[in-house]
């Protein structure tokens, strides 16, 4: 089940890294501006779907390295892990917690449980869609 189109393969190799970079950009920007884990995961999944269309399912599995179901499970674990800091601090579950790490030079790196939750959503969406698509293409 793989197509032998040279154009599609060459285009896929050029477009896929762009899509993956853009998905990470959307994920990291998501809290204050449009973006976030869900749309980032969708864009990343579409990159892998494009790869699956042009190179077949087997090589997509090799590229992902882990089973898409494991990605889904790890995403849910990330979502669960984002609730723990607020529980430890005695707040209500899923309260957003922020840390500011000083960077060398000026500026701070803002870390938050929101970001952890967003990464969880990203992995869960990616895992779900890849499970669907790989299952459909193998059937």
């Amino acid at each position, binding site marked *: 089940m793989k*197509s032998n189109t040279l154009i*599609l393969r060459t285009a896929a190799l050029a*477009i896929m890294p*762009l*899509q993956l970079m*853009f998905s990470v950009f*959307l994920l990291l920007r998501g809290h204050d*501006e*449009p*973006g976030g884990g869900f*749309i980032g995961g*969708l*864009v990343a999944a*579409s990159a892998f*779907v*494009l790869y699956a*269309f042009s190179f077949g399912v087997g090589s997509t599995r090799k590229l992902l390295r882990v089973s898409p179901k494991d990605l889904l499970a790890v995403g849910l674990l990330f979502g669960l892990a984002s609730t723990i800091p607020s529980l430890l601090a005695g707040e209500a579950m899923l309260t957003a917690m922020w840390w500011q790490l000083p960077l060398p030079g000026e500026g701070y790196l803002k870390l938050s449980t929101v970001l952890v939750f967003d990464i969880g959503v990203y992995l869960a969406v990616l895992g779900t869609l890849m499970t669907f698509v790989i299952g459909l293409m193998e059937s």
Partner: protein
Amino acid sequence: MLSIAIDVVYFMLSLALLFAFIRLTRGPSLPDRVVALELIASVVFGYVGVHAIDTGVSSFLDVAIVIALTAFLAAIGFARFVERGAKE
């Protein structure tokens, strides 16, 4: 001047959308419909780009990028479907 140009472009894009929709509904063969769908996707991200200029919100350009990066997946999917349908 720019606002007139934006209105004209909106009107022309709507016209293009209408014609593409007519081709989508009446298209005699499946490839015609696939090409019409692809044209509709192109017109939609044209809309989003013009809307970004209209409102000055640059985040809409990211929407246009996402649509442009993903819209052709539908065309590839249809192409595979047509290819396989011809074999079986």
